[in-house]
């Protein structure tokens, strides 16, 4: 498998020899496919690419890619990835996590990676359930989710991943759908290009334990009036015919307007506007469409840039023994 000399790597070249072991029909397959396509499109060097994951179905992802891969422990992938990136800033580092891995046990590391803005790409496969441990409700499960550990329905208000990322000070926040090659592919490319930590929520269907939870917004029946695909600088239009537009009321709450008639009222998507980002994340998806694409992106200094600049990249210019000798010493002859 010597692809070193290949000038052009195909999506297949990025696949490892391991048999993929998710349940048939699992949304993870589609994500994996879009990932290899994106890697190929970007022609990332396999040896310079590292996938780090925690534990969960999603976290098996690295095994299926012929890049460097590290399947670590539950919830800690962002911390491990931080170490990888600090040790070698030339690597393209991707974190694969689930809603349990990333937001239940691992919420703290996620927050700190985002606030530090370390240049890693975090993909959270949100299936609103703990897949690997057989279907208990997760921190993103909706209220009243029935599961083996909540037979009468869960009581926990879920945490919305993108909003959590916003509160954590993320510089890049996006959302995509497992099977939406185009939307997901675009978001993956954008996150690769973004310097600093990126956070992408991927709605992923767990066919075994939570089949169809996203159908209202991602299913074929759902239709385009349930999805708002964001493009920076473009009006927020949706509907089959782009006939609807999103606007703001006086009290800053969102309203839907007839885009054909009141185009001027329609909001223009501005990725760098955090207030708009919050509004988009808070959209009540019973009445409103769900926002997809890059919801928020505003570059800021990345941690490891400063780290490597200030700290001189592990260079060793002195001997520690000389330092000691230049301190307070005395001689015995």
């Amino acid at each position, binding site marked *: 498998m010597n692809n070193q000399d290949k000038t052009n790597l195909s999506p297949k070249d990025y696949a490892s020899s391991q048999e993929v072991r998710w349940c048939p029909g699992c949304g993870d397959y589609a994500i994996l496919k879009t990932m290899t396509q994106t890697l190929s499109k970007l022609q990332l060097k396999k040896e310079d690419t590292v996938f780090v994951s925690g534990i969960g179905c999603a976290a098996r992802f690295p095994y299926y890619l012929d890049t460097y891969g590290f399947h670590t422990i539950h919830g800690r992938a962002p911390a491990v990835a931080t170490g990888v990136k600090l040790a070698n800033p030339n690597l393209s580092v991707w974190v694969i996590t689930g809603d349990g891995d990333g937001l239940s046990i691992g919420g703290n*590391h996620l927050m700190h990676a985002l606030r530090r803005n370390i240049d890693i790409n975090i993909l959270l496969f949100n299936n609103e359930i703990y897949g690997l441990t057989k279907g208990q409700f997760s921190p993103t499960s909706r209220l009243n989710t029935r599961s083996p550990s909540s037979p009468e329905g869960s009581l926990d208000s879920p945490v919305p991943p993108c909003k959590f990322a916003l509160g954590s000070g993320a510089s890049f926040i996006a959302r995509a759908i497992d099977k939406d090659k185009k939307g997901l592919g675009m978001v993956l490319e954008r996150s690769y290009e973004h310097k600093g930590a990126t956070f992408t929520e991927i709605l992923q269907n767990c066919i075994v334990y939570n089949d169809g939870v996203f159908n209202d917004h991602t299913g074929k029946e759902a239709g385009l009036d349930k999805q708002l695909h964001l493009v920076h600088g473009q009006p927020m239009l949706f509907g089959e015919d782009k006939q609807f537009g999103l606007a703001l009321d006086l009290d800053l709450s969102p309203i839907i307007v007839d885009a054909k008639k009141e185009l001027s009222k329609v909001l223009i998507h501005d990725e760098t506007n955090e207030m708009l980002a919050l509004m988009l994340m808070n959209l009540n998806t019973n009445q409103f469409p769900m926002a997809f694409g890059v919801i928020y992106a505003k570059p800021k200094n990345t941690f490891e840039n400063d780290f490597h600049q200030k700290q001189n990249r592990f260079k060793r210019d002195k001997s520690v023994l000389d330092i000691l000798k230049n301190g307070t010493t005395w001689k015995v002859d």
Partner: protein
Amino acid sequence: MSSDQEKSVIIRFAGDSGDGVQLLGSQFLKTSAESKENFLTFPDFPAEIRAPAGTTFGVSAYQLQVGGIHIASPGDKADVLVAFNPAALITNLQYVKESGLILVNEDTFTERNLSKAGYDKNPLVDGSLGLFQMIRLPISSQVGEALKDSDLSKSEIERTKNFWALGLISWMFDRNIDSLTEWINNKFKNNNISNANIKTLEAGYSYGDIHEIEQKIPKLYTSKGAFDAGTYTAIKGSDAMAYGLAAAVEITNIPILFCSYPITPASPVLHSLAKHKDLGVETFQAEDEIAAICSAIGASYAGILGVTSSSGPGIALKTEAMGLALSAELPLVIINSQRGGPSTGLPTKTEQSDLNQAIYGRNGDAPIPVIASSSPSDNFYTAIEAVQIAIKYMTPVLLLTDGYIANASEPWMIPSINDIPKLDLVTNTSTEHTSQAKAFERNSETLARTWIKPGTPNEMYRTGGLEKDVLTGNISYDPANHQAMTDLRFKKIACLQQDLPEQKLSRNNGSKNLILSWGSTYGVIQETLNTCENLNADHLHLRHIYPLPANFTELVQCYEKILVPELNQGQLAKYIQAETSREVISFSKVTGQPFTVDEIKERIVGLEGTK
């Protein structure tokens, strides 16, 4: 103390956290070093950050023993106590020898301070201190007098007290104060302050001269140390650890990412490393201990060495991730600066009670080498050794040190890099293989897998914490493979055991009694054996705890009684019984304080009576 060669003095400074007692102690240490004395120091910090002035719980103390060739502990009870206020006196009296010398700042013995300290009556006048030699010093008035012409505020003037005491003590020990003057000049940017400090330093010094007779201020003499020729420095344990890691980078040429989360008493290593750049060690302060060890593991996966450091409660949090490093066979050093437990326990006090946690404290069969430092300067060498074992065997290594070692200082000859013991770091020359399997080729001597670094073309591999196929490293649930991998993890330890230096006795008198010790008790045991006459015992001090040295069992076999002193409830004692099925006598102390020479001596003498 038996001979003149052995003449040492134990001195203890005690005062409010704000009195500058630690600075006083460490500066006095410097004069001792310059006059080529032997010494060992031990600061006794208050548990609180900075408690209200005058309270007993705000008292900070600093003890050191100077002189003689055999001293290796800060000493038991002090010959001299310098107490800056009533609270310092009441809390430290217990650490003074009978008929010891006590110097007090009498100006602070006001009614208010006396009652804050819990004195009903003034001990300076009520005769309750009759057993001691008391010298009442008007330190506050003296510094006021000395600085009456300065521009400093009253509280700034008061704050120079410690230099006055330093001056007097220097006079008593016949020390040259020139280098102190120089140091003061460099230290304080503000000229007014440095001048004032120098003035009071000199005032203290002359006070001795002038009031020697009238106040019966004695001159104290100590004997010189017997040092080999070389350049020496006073090394603090936490600094030695930091320097040792830096030296390891120099030796192995592999940079270190030191990942840590602050905790007492481990933080000083982080601080020490953070200060030094250009040594190939970088520091990362993580959000918690789990993130610290995980980012260290990430660094090791990426091809440099991850090191993490903490104390008991933080180490507890790292135990899950240690298993990952073990399972993924990545080099990693985990440093535990032990403190009093269980739980939050006594954070500022020393203890050796995390031994069980180090040897056994992980899920699954998870063997990880454990080594332990025996003194402040030994931290330098154990750090280097831990790094080398980790890299050579592709394994996490646990390095145990403790709060006593971290904060104590001793004279240390700065070695040259060539004198430092090194392990042969082997690298695998790999045969043809698919990329995945290449990382799992093993060195036949160490059984270490190959450390492939991301960025290397054609050698991409995947790994993790699930059980791996012994050949390919792919996930494997096969029963026989799990047995093989478990066996392999233990065989690696057996290989390391063969690689360890032969265990030697620290004292071999042909006795039938053995003192078996580990960690920071080394100094006090050696001092006991060397300074007390006629003690019938040999001494074996363990640096390599897991695995035990290959010749260990044979070595201890011939002893009739094995006494195991340790600062915990007998953890090493049980471990030795587990490993050798051989009964030992546990001597345990769990007070947050180190052993004293007297305690050790008494137990050795008592051995004759045990059956």
